[in-house]
């Protein structure tokens, strides 16, 4: 059964170890900057690798991948927003902020999926890597637009004598343009796309000197990263009660919706192999926890960070790592067999 195999992957086991460390209330704590350094390394390594491979691959397929990545990035948060508003458990601001996370992606989940596929010997295309890079930002933009809409309708219904502020005054500081720029220049995107370009244009002899760094120690760094993520997830899941059952359910249903959509696009629209389509499913199913939270803090300050951080880090990330990845893989296998 794939699920068990997935659970015996060192990377996944380290995630569990981090989780358990918090549950037994160990005093283990990683230095605050370590997670950031590990992220930088991981993004740089997959970027370089992907760019190197992409330079050799088909530009038409690459272009199609980008288009479908944009579609996912724009459509998923809208689905999320409408579902959340329909539950009536959160206000529109929170709904906008949360759904932005689900339209974007988690590199950590993506890398765990790669480790999973490598381990069971399934090959995959490199196009999903471009999709990873492309999907970081669009959902942020959709989140901003949804929040702006919510803010406007709220301002209209707020016209009480005491509220002197005009609608314009209650919008977050800088204009939409500046927030858009923030979305497109966020650190993860810069490292990932930058490294892909470097991987693509560097001389082969230059790249060959880099391979030991980006290949050999990669799995170890990923283990360390997931170790820390396990601790983060355990801390976040503690806020489960504040979030409530309906929201928590959203943290599991939404990735399933994304996973099915991604599997379909990867398999049927892009014609990828089982491995490649699984990766697209994982991208669509994963929720951002690096790029989107600070963007939402700045752009939708009215939303409660507890909600989106608990959902993305405490529920969806563990769900995907432990259950989602083998599930999406099985789904794609079934599609391929059909």
């Amino acid at each position: 059964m794939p699920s068990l195999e997935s659970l015996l992957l060192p990377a996944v086991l380290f995630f569990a170890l981090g989780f358990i460390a918090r549950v037994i209330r160990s005093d283990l704590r990683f230095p605050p900057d370590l997670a950031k350094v590990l992220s930088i390394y991981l993004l740089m390594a997959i970027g370089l690798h992907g760019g190197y491979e992409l330079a050799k691959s088909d530009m038409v397929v690459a272009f199609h991948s980008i288009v479908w990545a944009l579609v996912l990035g724009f459509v998923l948060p809208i689905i999320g927003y409408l579902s959340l508003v329909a539950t009536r458990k959160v206000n529109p601001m929170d709904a906008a902020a949360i759904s932005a996370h689900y339209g974007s992606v988690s590199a950590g989940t993506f890398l765990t999926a790669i480790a999973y596929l490598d381990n069971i010997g399934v090959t995959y295309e490199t196009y999903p890597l471009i999709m990873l890079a492309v999907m970081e930002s669009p959902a942020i933009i959709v989140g901003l637009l949804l929040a702006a809409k919510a803010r406007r309708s709220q301002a209209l219904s707020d016209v009480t004598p005491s509220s002197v502020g005009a609608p314009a005054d209650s919008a977050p500081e800088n204009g939409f343009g500046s927030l858009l720029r923030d979305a497109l220049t966020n650190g993860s995107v810069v490292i990932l796309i930058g490294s892909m370009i470097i991987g693509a244009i560097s001389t082969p002899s230059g790249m060959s000197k880099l391979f030991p760094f980006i290949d050999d120690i990669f799995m170890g760094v990923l283990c360390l990263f997931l170790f820390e993520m396990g601790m983060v997830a355990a801390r976040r899941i503690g806020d489960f009660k504040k979030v409530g059952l309906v929201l928590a359910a959203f943290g599991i249903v939404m990735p399933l919706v994304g996973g099915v959509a991604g599997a379909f696009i990867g398999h049927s629209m892009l014609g990828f192999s089982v491995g490649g389509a699984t990766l697209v499913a994982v991208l669509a199913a994963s929720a951002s926890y690096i790029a989107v939270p600070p963007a939402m803090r700045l752009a939708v300050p009215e939303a409660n960070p507890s909600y989106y951080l608990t959902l993305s880090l405490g529920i969806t990330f563990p769900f995907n790592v432990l259950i989602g990845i083998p599930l999406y893989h099985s789904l794609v296998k079934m599609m391929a067999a059909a």
Partner: protein
Amino acid sequence: MITLYPEKLLSIITISSMEDRLVSMFKKYGVSGFTILRARGEGSSGYEADISGFDSNILVKVIVSEERMEPILESIERKLKKGYHLTVYISDVQVIAPDKFS
């Protein structure tokens, strides 16, 4: 004996992604300088910042004369109204070189 002069010390605790905005605000209102420390904490929004390294708090300190304080506080109040989380406090300090801060 060294003469001391009174000034105000404004301290702001907020998330690190607010840094750029605060700094532009300070520059707009012409403060002479500022100091930033990394911090973490817990507050009304109930979440515990930092620790994971993904998002941490900062503690910003600005020494500023009483006259210049008012527009800064007004700008802070506007930010608070918009929903930004800023924990702000002001204390009285004494300095050696008052012209440094005006």
